[in-house]
């Protein structure tokens, strides 16, 4: 039986020739791409199925609009709501990281994380490459069902926004990918401290689902009191990072956030990415320092 202390096996500093790191990273990306393409059939069916819950949401909101005489709810017309749900699907395609935190925690628990400690490969970098590969394949296959659904539902969308908004939208989506990645990776790293993190992941998913705008646009919380005078539930949610993983990009495309507010919110989103990336690094350093693995 051998004992591997993580502190003795910390990843070596990058003393390799220039671009060697980049080459390794691209090799990892290529491996992961091939791995993912094996299950392309599953992907297509899975993606189409994911639109089904939206169908019920659309009918539910249509019924709500039929029953009230209002033309809009919290600034959203019925068409806006349909477009909003479809757009949050796009954001979730970028920001959701199925299996990331669970996978990290499992690799800590079963000890497979130690291979990244002894190899000249950065674990977080590897996870990022794997995730980008996963996402690229996903988009490659999912573009068909997505395009089909969006074409059928094109009448619900407002006209294509101006170039600035489109650029801001793409930026917000990219940041939402990074934010989602670092949030879930940090969560998975908690496995170094608590061997079983499934309940923490569950609590995170619950909060995420409710506060990200996945269920309804955050604007709808504007009139919900929090008990603190003058502070609505929407304002509390605005202080948290979750809304950037579903609500924010969708709201940008629909023109709900514009001008100086848009620039400020994009900066806040970028700030959250930096905060979570640093948190993830710290968790990795501290975690590997206390990690010990037994066995061969």
């Amino acid at each position, binding site marked *: 039986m051998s004992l591997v202390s993580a502190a003795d096996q910390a990843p070596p500093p990058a003393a390799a020739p220039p671009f060697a790191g980049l080459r390794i990273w691209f090799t990892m990306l290529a491996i992961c791409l091939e791995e993912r393409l094996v299950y392309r059939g*599953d992907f297509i*069916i*899975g993606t189409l*199925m994911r639109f*089904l*819950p939206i*169908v*019920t949401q659309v*009918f*539910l909101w*249509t*019924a*709500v609009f*039929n*029953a*009230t005489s*209002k033309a809009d*709810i*919290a600034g959203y017309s019925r068409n806006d709501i349909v477009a909003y749900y479809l757009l949050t699907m796009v954001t979730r395609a970028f920001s959701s990281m199925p299996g990331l935190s669970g996978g990290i925690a499992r690799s800590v628990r079963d000890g497979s994380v130690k291979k990244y400690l002894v190899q000249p490969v950065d674990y977080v970098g590897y996870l990022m490459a794997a995730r980008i590969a996963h996402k690229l394949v996903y988009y490659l296959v999912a573009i068909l069902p997505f395009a089909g659904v969006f074409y059928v539902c094109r009448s619900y969308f407002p006209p294509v926004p101006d170039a600035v908004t489109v650029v801001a939208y793409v930026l917000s989506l990219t940041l939402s990918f990074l934010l989602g990645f670092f949030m879930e990776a940090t969560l998975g790293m908690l496995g170094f401290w608590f061997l079983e993190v499934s*309940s923490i992941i*569950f*609590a995170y998913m*619950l909060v995420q*689902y*409710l506060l990200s705008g996945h*269920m*309804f646009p955050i604007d*709808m*919380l504007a*009139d*919900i009191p929090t008990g603190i005078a003058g502070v609505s539930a929407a304002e509390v949610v605005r202080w948290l990072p979750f809304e950037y993983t579903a609500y924010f990009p969708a709201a940008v495309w629909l023109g709900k956030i514009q001008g100086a507010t848009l620039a400020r919110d994009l900066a806040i989103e970028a700030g959250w990415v930096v905060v979570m990336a640093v948190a993830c690094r710290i968790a990795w350093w501290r975690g590997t320092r206390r990690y010990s693995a037994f066995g061969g």
Partner: protein
Amino acid sequence: MNRYLSIFLTFARACLVRDMTFRANFLLECVTSLGWMSMNLAFYVLIFTFTSEIGKNTGWSKEPFFAFVATGLIINSIVQALFMPSAEELTEMVRTGGLDAVLVQPLDAQFMLSMHRVDFSSFANGLVGVGLLGWAVSRMDYQPSPVAWLLYPLLILCGVAILYSLIIMLAAATILLGRNQSLYDFWFYLTNFSRYPAEIYSGPWGGPIRMLCTFVIPILLVVNVPARVIAMPLSGESWGLIAAALIAAAASLLISRLVFQAALAKYRSASS
């Protein structure tokens, strides 16, 4: 029949003993399902801050709608507690050959495969459902008649039977395909259509969906019929729906049984 009942009770007792051995885990599972449920309830409460009714003149105002939600909670918790854990295991059993051990036992395979595990923590949602039903009914303008109260449990059973048949059909698909990791996904996406009153499915797209989910896959009858009986006066249409639910429950049990038997006949062991 008595033999099956006593075997089922033995299974249930074993599962209860197991759950109580890991009490913290059991409580955590209860909290888990209660967490998801509260989130959905919060969403419905939010919707009713914007409208007084789901669909114009459908009668699904706040209290009747929450009676509907409560009915859904009760039915789903029964299904999740009694059948779903066993069905989830089946996926793995087909792949590993563990199914063989079930087939050689002197018991009905469908019984063994769909009822050998009971998840008691799922009853937590059902209990909340019963409480919610009591709250909603006591606040409704319309009070259900004794006939409605008598029919309600029967129709809940019909709903459970329809969902059970759906699980059995998906299980049969698992056996035929050898591998069906998305059994639970299919289940989630299909039952999603039963979550809201059938009246919301109207218009050029909604009409066909309503027909399909009533007559082909009778998923819309599961919650709608009992909820309507308890939340709205019994009318001619209600009696038609009650008859439809009874027929659908009987037919789906029969068809799923036949499909399951046919799937088992085609099963080829994966182990040596």
